[in-house]
């Protein structure tokens, strides 16, 4: 399973390196959203600083949708899904590999966004360990749930519009938990953030487990 996951993740990341979709499209989109939030919500740095946690994770959520769409678009072209089903790869390995590749791309986007929030919104970081742990847990949850719903929508003609409708409500616990934990890490009391981190870890483990078990069936039925 883990050998297959490595193979799929390596393949997806190599495709990303060659196509540069995350670097040349998703990342500029994320920075643009950050700038637009700054313009729309008044250049008053006090308010932006307080809202930066929520703005950060809403932007990450938008970027996650793009990354997940892309991860399954590459499989939809020229019979890729049938080829995957015939490949002999363990479906759980395919799930973990695709989720890992999405997570790596999101981490790259989040690193740039975090720097942007600090520089543009004047946000102060007070709890680095909580911040890092929140990013790790929330990104894992986003990637796992996104991969699961991505394959569910993959076989449908209306997948581009259906995926956000299916996925955004499911990801709302991540948005809430990650925002609360970030608020605690960005100028708040770090101790207030750890219970929210617990929620994020639980969400991530739940979707990793469910995805590992259900991905094969969803790949067959999609």
């Amino acid at each position, binding site marked *: 399973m883990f050998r*297959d996951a490595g*193979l799929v993740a390596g*393949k997806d990341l*190599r*495709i990303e390196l*060659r*196509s540069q979709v995350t670097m040349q499209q998703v990342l500029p989109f994320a920075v643009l959203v950050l700038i637009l939030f700054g313009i729309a919500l008044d250049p008053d740095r006090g308010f932006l600083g307080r809202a930066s946690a929520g703005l950060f994770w809403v932007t990450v959520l938008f970027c996650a949708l793009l990354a997940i769409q892309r991860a399954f678009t*590459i499989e939809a*072209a*020229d*019979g*890729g899904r*049938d*080829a995957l*089903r*015939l*490949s*002999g*790869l363990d479906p759980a390995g395919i799930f973990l590999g695709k989720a890992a590749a999405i997570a790596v791309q999101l981490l790259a986007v989040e690193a740039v966004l975090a720097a942007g929030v600090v520089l543009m919104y004047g946000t102060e970081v007070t709890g680095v360990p909580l911040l890092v742990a929140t990013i790790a847990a929330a990104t894992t949850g986003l990637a796992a749930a996104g991969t699961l719903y991505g394959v569910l929508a993959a076989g449908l003609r209306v997948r581009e519009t259906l995926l956000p409708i299916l996925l955004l409500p499911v990801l709302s616990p991540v948005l809430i938990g990650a925002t609360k934990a970030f608020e605690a890490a960005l100028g708040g009391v770090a101790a207030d953030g750890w219970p929210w981190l617990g929620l994020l870890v639980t969400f991530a483990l739940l979707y990793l487990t469910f995805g590992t078990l259900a991905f*094969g069936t969803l790949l*067959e039925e999609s």
Partner: protein
Amino acid sequence: MEPAVQLRGAVTLLGRFPALAGIDLDVAAGEIVLFRGPNGAGKTTLLRLCAGLLPLARGEGRVLGHDLADRRQARALRARVGLLGHATGLYDELTVADNVRFWGRAAGADADDVAAALAGCGLDGRLRDVPVAALSAGQRRRTSLACLVARRPELWLLDEPHAGLDHDGRELLDDLVRRAVASGATVLVASHDLERAEALAHRVVTLVGGTTAPASPPAAGSVGPEEVALVP
């Protein structure tokens, strides 16, 4: 010795339409069988059933010893077959070598198998590092064939395999098929290129309307393969 493919009254539905309407078929290990018939006769569906990609709605079917009625066994079968279909399953952004390496390693092939597949399909030269998006249709077909060769399947399922290939490519494909059979593989071919495919096949089966048609008598002086009626 158990047949490589054994179907009895096999029915496969595409939606509610019976694309295969009760096929009986036996294919021995090491045989090359050509399926011919008009468009919509069920040739592609038959190959996809034998690949474990489509469920068996009624009847019985065993491929390489796997019971097609059992979803779990049908899935396990897939790792032992290679399907060259209308779609290539290639990733446009990756190079020829990347694609063959990925699909080969997915089936457990090592670096030597991948290198041999690339060389065997004439892709070890300048094409090796070319992105698939930049290839012609024939070159894509060759790359897809190399992916199949790297997997070393026991059952080759070839759907219009000569389509898009130039003369050298067709010769290469026929040579690869003969070598695969010599090493114990079984090959099912669906083709409209009858002249070339009949020369390759040991036996011809005609499909009409999702079932096997009675054999027509061979033409006088014919030296082609044996044509077999499989309808009881």
